[in-house]
């Protein structure tokens, strides 16, 4: 599988995901490989889910005629009709609340929150109902809802358009939180999320939307709930997800030049956390860092660091580090570059360890 440079100026780096390529070529029904952006992969996942299962519904703000502000739902209304794919009134609590009702009545709604910060009006419906309905009813009511949220920054968005809200969802029992970092996973994980009987918060890294891979769809990658070692190494484990997977791979590349052998893991699913895969790597390397865009304090990295330390304390030569956004609100575009975790910041962090231990 070759990876092409995206058309978007922010995505002019490359990423490698060997696993997905293998999986793709293993499928009989795969069409000829072509260059696929993440938006196209997501679009195809929605199309295939709509085609395979009559109960799948797609609605939200501007997902119909316009095909979504990121064009992820492009063409779906024309293909499946406005009874399957439609524009809702502009109200996020309304979108999630009605999706709950539809799911109670046997449907599998896939809804879009237009930007990450615009899921907040739906917070009560997500936390008090979506996450809890199965438990409230002793398992009698399932809510197979997929909540698609374009998240994170690095695209020059104005305020409230670049939040990384994953910590809110991962700290809520009852939710499954998934985030792909490449087109193949985007396709495969979205299909699996829609098919899941658990509600899934499906977080799409905006800055990777225009990343291209040569790939044949449909593709089945590693299952949901599993992290993946996407680069092997022996000295350090770098953990990343969504937009920071590229940063991690670049850091590994740069580290190699300094003689550092860095293993990179793409977490892919944030809740549940794949303790097995990650702990195995950390026990091997004895050092790990987690990279994310969200602010460090109380971010998802805290859980990762805490649980890896709990489980692997005696195997660690150094504390698990968090290379994250600063503990400030996401800044305006001109300051993004100073806020976001960069390869330099990652390497500086690794240098801060006492390598003698």
């Amino acid at each position, binding site marked *: 599988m070759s990876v092409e440079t995206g058309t978007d100026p922010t995505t002019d780096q490359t990423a490698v995901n060997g696993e997905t390529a293998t999986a793709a070529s293993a499928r009989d029904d795969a069409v000829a490989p072509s260059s696929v952006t993440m938006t196209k992969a997501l679009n195809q996942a929605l199309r295939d889910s709509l085609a395979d299962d009559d109960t799948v519904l797609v609605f939200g703000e501007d997902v119909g005629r316009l095909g979504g502000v990121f064009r992820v739902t492009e063409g779906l209304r024309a293909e499946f009709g406005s009874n399957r794919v439609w524009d809702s009134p502009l109200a996020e609590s309304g979108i999630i609340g009605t999706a709950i009702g539809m799911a109670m009545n046997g449907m599998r709604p896939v809804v879009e929150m237009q930007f990450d910060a615009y899921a907040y009006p739906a917070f009560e419906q997500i936390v008090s109902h979506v996450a809890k309905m199965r438990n*409230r009813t002793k398992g009698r009511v399932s809510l197979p809802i997929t909540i698609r949220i374009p998240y994170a920054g690095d695209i020059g968005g104005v305020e409230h358009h670049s939040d990384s809200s994953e910590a809110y969802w991962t700290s809520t029992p009852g939710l499954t939180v998934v985030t792909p970092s490449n087109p193949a996973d985007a396709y495969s994980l979205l299909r699996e999320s829609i098919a899941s009987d658990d509600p899934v918060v499906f977080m799409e890294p905006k800055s990777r939307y225009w990343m291209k891979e040569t790939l044949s769809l449909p593709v089945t990658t590693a299952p949901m709930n599993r992290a993946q070692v996407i680069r092997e190494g022996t000295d350090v484990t770098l953990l990343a997800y969504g937009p920071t997977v590229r940063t991690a791979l670049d850091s590994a590349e740069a580290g190699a030049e300094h003689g550092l052998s860095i293993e990179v893991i793409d977490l892919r699913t944030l809740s549940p956390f794949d303790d097995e895969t990650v702990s195995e790597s950390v026990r091997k390397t004895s050092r790990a860092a987690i990279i994310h865009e969200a602010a460090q304090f109380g971010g998802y990295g805290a859980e990762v660091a805490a649980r890896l330390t709990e489980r692997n304390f005696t195997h660690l030569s150094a504390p698990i580090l968090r290379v994250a956004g600063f503990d400030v609100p996401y800044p305006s575009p001109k300051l993004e570059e100073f806020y976001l975790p960069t390869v330099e910041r990652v390497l500086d962090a690794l240098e801060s360890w006492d390598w003698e231990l």
Partner: protein
Amino acid sequence: MTIDVPTTGRSLPQLQPISFIGADGRLTDTPTEGLRIPSDATLTGLYRQMVLVRRFEAQVTHLTRQGRLATYPSAAGQEAAEVGATTALAPNDWLFPTYRDSAALLTRGVPVAEILAAFRGDWHCGFDPHEYHTSPAATPLATQTLHATGFAMAAKLKGEDAATLTFLGDGASSEGDTHEAFNFASVWQTPTVFVLQNNQYAISTPLREQTNATMLADRAAGYGMPGLRVDGNDVAAVFAAVAAALERGRNGDGPTLIECLTYRMESHTNSDDPTKYRDSEEVEHWKQFDPIDRLEKYLRTTGALDDSTVAEIAEAAETLAASVRDAMNTEAEIDPRELFAHVYANPRTALAEQQQVLEAELAAAGHA
């Protein structure tokens, strides 16, 4: 049910609440926007059910005072709205109740023990929603109005002959979710009936500090949806209005808002102290509008009810009360391991590990 549906078009509801049977037990001459009074047989059934739920509320409140339930919000005084609206539902319709609506659950056929499971702390929702076509009672205010709208939308998309009914309070009408539900339901023309029980208070907050509108039914016009204000203590009016609105919904004519003017006779829940915010005269005043008294008077006039039927119903109510006591005397078996059983459809390793922690604790404590 083929009552003609009042089409309000672009207009505000009539000022006078729709009512058939006045507080004095006689027929009123209020205009009723095309609605017709239910038959005596229907009314007798409604009477019976109101007597039962009142006895139920009294019994549960009593047990709560004895500490057998942690908390209980009684709908005493609101029997007409609870029973009238719920009885109008067809079996295939779905009900979306709140914490206040145990009387509606009872009317819907949910067993006593399953209704009360939540209030005595057994489990959040004690019944199977799919069995009774009834959603778990919602505690986060107004959230259920959207569930009812979404459920109805799915029914419409699937071509099902089903409508949904959701209760909400005067207080809940102020929440953003209520507005979003009204709007989604009307834009999508879902078969949804919003039964707003305006019982004058949201805990301690009186209606005049909740809204500056002449009536809450006035909201409907802003959504292009019919709105009606009914005497919520006249079960005939409630039943007729809700039945017509459900029919309207099933016919593809969209949602309806029905404001039922009523009064909460008891405290908000047993831990509330209503003397802090309302005086006993007000409570006394509302007693004269009692929904059961007036219907009994009326049905005795028409001859549908006589002493022996009344006695028979009173006896049924006592039987129900006894069954409530029995249900509350039986301790439910709750396995602590169920903490982990229903969180996800797909099992999680980390949860299984946590369950091991609990198992060890249970073993150490000699727990079964």
